[in-house]
């Protein structure tokens, strides 16, 4: 509905967002053009950040991580959601189980991860038992996949639930019509299920993207501020900059991150809108 009344609904929330999120962010943006002592220095900070090797590494790793995780999570969870569709109480039980990882406090996850993925951990014990060589998961490139695993592990349930919500909205009679027309399972899935999940998919992609940043907490708690090179993420860098009081670099990097996310979300949104 075209009406300015909408603003009234937004205003109270928006003012809070301004105070607690927008103003701090603008402050960061201002800082990105200043030295640590508050003197204006133009784009110096940006230049420093863009030339910084650690920044390059962190950006590469983060992008790679998102590129691997996001599709994997989307496919796996959609698969699970479709399978779970129209299964009765057993399916419900499964969905409940998938949600548990989200509730486990970080401290518990960390202990468990150490127990499993440590050099002396249970996974290596299993390998030994099978007569294989052990792998030092946290200190080789394998750590990247440990991180991918924990991301999927943590977010699977929640994504399955969101898909299920999307699936349940698709009217049953469309499927029936398709079956009557003699369409196979795969065909109904491609031509009916997928198109109808578009709106849901947008939400899921955005949220999963958001959550890919949050996996940092576990990575940090398990492997510390300087983990194996392949899981050195942007947030590790931010964290370390914070410790060394490199606020100027951090501010510039934050603004860059803001722009990247902006472009990403905008493109995503555009591609969705266009097809509509």
């Amino acid at each position, binding site marked *: *509905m*075209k009406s300015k*009344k*909408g*603003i*009234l*609904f937004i205003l*109270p*929330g928006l003012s809070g967002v301004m*105070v*607690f*999120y927008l*103003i*701090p*962010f603008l*402050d960061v943006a201002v*800082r990105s053009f200043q030295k640590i002592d508050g003197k204006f220095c133009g784009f110096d900070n940006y230049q420093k950040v863009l030339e910084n090797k650690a920044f390059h590494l962190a950006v590469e790793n983060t992008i790679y991580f998102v590129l691997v995780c996001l599709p994997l999570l989307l496919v796996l969870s959609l*698969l699970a959601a479709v*399978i779970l569709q129209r299964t009765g109480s057993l399916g419900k039980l*499964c969905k*409940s*189980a*998938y949600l*548990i*990882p*989200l*509730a*486990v*406090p*970080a*401290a*518990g*996850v*960390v*202990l468990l991860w*150490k127990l499993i993925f440590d050099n*002396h951990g*249970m996974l290596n*014990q299993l390998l030994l038992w099978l007569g294989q060589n052990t792998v030092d998961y946290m200190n080789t490139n394998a750590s990247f996949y440990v991180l991918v695993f924990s991301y999927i*592990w943590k977010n699977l349930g929640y994504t399955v*639930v969101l898909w299920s919500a999307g699936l*349940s*909205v698709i009217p049953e009679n469309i499927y029936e019509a398709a079956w009557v027309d003699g369409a196979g399972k795969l065909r109904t899935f491609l031509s009916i299920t997928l198109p109808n999940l578009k*709106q849901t998919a947008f939400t899921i992609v*955005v*949220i999963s*993207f958001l959550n890919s*940043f949050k996996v*940092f907490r576990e990575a940090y708690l398990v492997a510390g501020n300087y983990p194996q090179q392949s899981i050195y993420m*942007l947030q590790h860098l*931010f*964290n370390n900059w*914070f410790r060394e009081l490199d*606020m100027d670099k951090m501010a510039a990097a*934050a603004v860059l991150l*803001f722009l990247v*996310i*902006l472009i990403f*979300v905008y493109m995503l*949104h555009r591609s969705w809108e266009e097809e509509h």
Partner: protein
Amino acid sequence: MRITRCAGKLCKTVFLGLCAIITICPLLFLLSGSFMDSLELSELIAPVIQGKEGMAGWHWIPRYPTLQNIIELLLDSPEFYKMFWNSVKITGTILIGQLVFAMPSAWGLARYEFPGKKQIYFLYIILMMLPFQVTMLSEYLVLDKIQLLNSQWSVILPGIFSTFSVFLMYRFFAGIPEEVLEAARMDGANEWQVFCHIGVPLGYAGIISAMVLQFLECWNQIERPMAFLKQKELWSLALYLPEISTEKAGFAMAAAFVALLPALFVFLYGQDYLERGITATVQK
């Protein structure tokens, strides 16, 4: 044909079951660890935590079950209680605040067209994605200005205005068919009434799912309380879970387990709503 169907079914079951086992594992792990005595635990995890020789292992059923950890936690740890209630307070207030502020925001964004709407929507999405470290210092300065530092409001207010739930509810509110609202307006309802009597009941699923996820977010948050609350008496539960040393591992696991329980209940309760779509509700 029949064999392939059977095999397909088997594959499905194995896939789902495997996922379920992997996800449920940590719960059992914390549960069994809570009932182990320190000797057994340290024997099992010492190779990992202290770098002792040998391999780590686990007993899913404690060899010498003991209630000591649970008793120590529930009876002898007043600070655990204190922080548990702090968490309840903080989380509860945030959730209520979200109902008051985020719900109308989502409605306004989803159902009305006005200049700047899209920009605001994008802004919300991006703000929710920025990592906390980035804005921590600036947020600290703002909170300092309005004198909220070192009070629980410094954690609560940013939580209330978190844009995540606006984003989530938006999707659900946007899915309500316009005709339903038009019909109500025809009957003479004003915009506020439309929101309260049509929007909220129909978007119930979205609201609940946003609340459930927000609950988890607040319940497990570490960074903000640690940065803004100096006094330990104000801390929330996630900060209490002590560093896991071998002697105290059982205690830590018991604490983690108890901390996990409320979240679990909220899940089980909210799950039905989580996966209920809009139209499903409309059709009823």
